């Protein structure tokens, strides 16, 4: 009855990349289902934003408006999609979002680097560095991916590769997606057929 039992061996195996574009998803009514959370958390461990920053960076400040008008959509998306992943892989880095700016105001991302002299990262949470070097990205009128590319070139962040376990989960998810698409297509056909039969029956009855 299900395609699972007779999977076509010639079928092209699904590519485990779909989740990479997935948004960071939080909340579920179904959290107790086995593996569910671990798959959900995959979206935080991997994807755009999942990168390890060099040790000199100790703080990232984002500044943009509360609503999206005036080119403030990209910064918000960056915060929602990339920043959780960045925070997961760089838990010691302080990340702040200030959304008190007016819509015609700037949208900036400021990076704080420890100066070379004090770059010994014994205290990663060192918050006040008078000699800190700052670099700024103008985020206004840019997409979240555009901001991320600029961020990577500026910081030299190293992207995180999926572990073996992650790859297995990704593969599993991709398979589920293709199965689900197949099933829904088949069911759609089936429903169509039933509907047509009912209509025919109706017509016969009316005659």
């Amino acid at each position, binding site marked *: *009855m*299900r395609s*699972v*039992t*007779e999977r076509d061996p010639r079928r092209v195996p699904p590519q485990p990349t779909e989740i990479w574009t997935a948004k*960071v998803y*939080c*909340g*579920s009514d179904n*959290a*107790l*289902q*086995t*593996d*569910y*959370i*671990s798959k*959900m*958390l995959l979206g*935080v461990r991997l994807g755009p934003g999942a990168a390890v920053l060099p040790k000199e960076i100790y703080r990232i400040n*984002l500044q943009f408006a509360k609503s999206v008008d005036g080119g403030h959509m990209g910064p918000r998306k960056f*915060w929602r999609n990339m*920043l*959780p*992943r*960045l*925070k*997961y892989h760089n*838990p*010691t880095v*302080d*990340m*702040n*979002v200030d959304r008190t700016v007016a819509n015609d105001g700037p949208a900036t991302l400021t990076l704080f680097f420890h100066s070379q002299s004090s770059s010994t990262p014994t205290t*990663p*949470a060192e*918050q006040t560095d008078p000699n800190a070097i700052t670099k700024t990205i103008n985020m206004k009128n840019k997409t979240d991916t555009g901001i991320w590319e600029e961020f990577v070139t500026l910081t030299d962040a190293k992207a995180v590769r999926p572990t073996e376990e992650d790859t297995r989960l990704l593969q*599993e998810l991709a*398979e*589920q997606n293709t*199965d689900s698409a197949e099933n829904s297509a088949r069911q759609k056909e*089936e429903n169509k057929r039933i509907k047509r039969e009912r209509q025919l029956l109706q017509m016969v009855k009316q005659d």
Partner: protein
Amino acid sequence: MAAARTPLAQWGHSLLSQSRNKPDALSRICLACQSRYASAATTAKYRRGDANAPTKKKKERKHFKTEDLKNADKYSLVEAMRYIRAFEVGYPSNSPKYEIAMKLRTLKNGPLVRSRLNLPHPVKTDMRICVICPPDSPQADAARAAGASLVGEDAIFDAVKEGRIEFDRCLCLDTSLPKLAKAGIARALGPRGLMPSAKTGTVVRDVSAAVRDMVGASEYREKEGVVRLAIATLAATPEQLKANIKAFMDKVRGDLNTLSDRIVKDVHEVVLSSTHGPGFTLNGEFADEEGTRPEELAR
């Protein structure tokens, strides 16, 4: 979840569906071309409102359902914190809170766990406390000094009758209790859980001490078999959160033990969550051996 795509599961599935529909159908290929419709006899049986259908009464559940946690993902405190901090990134550190939910193995009826405790690292809330006692007594002055926002008798009764309830907790001096009872505001306060009563420990002799206790205290109660509590602010370090969770667990265990002998309740699951984050079932460990180090989450 259809995660298990093992050959064994497939085999089991096909076996099941075969036996359900056609006990003697052997070929697996035949499955694909089976009829999808149940026979007329069976549809009649399951038709809604059929008086002749045998009614099988479902046995009512006496306990709240507890899931089997054998296969559930469990996390150490530090790992859970790392994820939660990622989900909460960008919010001001004083606004989101770590929350804890403790699932109990318990009957649906019977006494409930309800108490309050002072956490070692309090979750700061600007709670407004109302104290009912004669407004010009020394007790009233002491209560005001301890942090009560409303102190008085008739003035408060009148305000409540008008619908102005400008407090989150209500205490009552034991000598003022008859006056409170006469005022007839239980109808307004009762449903909100604000009506002072000796049972909840809100009718007291020493008002100022009670207020002081309450200012830093967190209240919790069991609801549908779960005790929930905001356990720490997001700025808490792993050690602070651990201390708070431990204090909470000990307090609830104490509460469970003081219930009557016939009532057996115990802790089934502890879930750490936060204002915007998902929930993580804790495994009781502080940190994984080769996982995140607690120092990394110190800030």
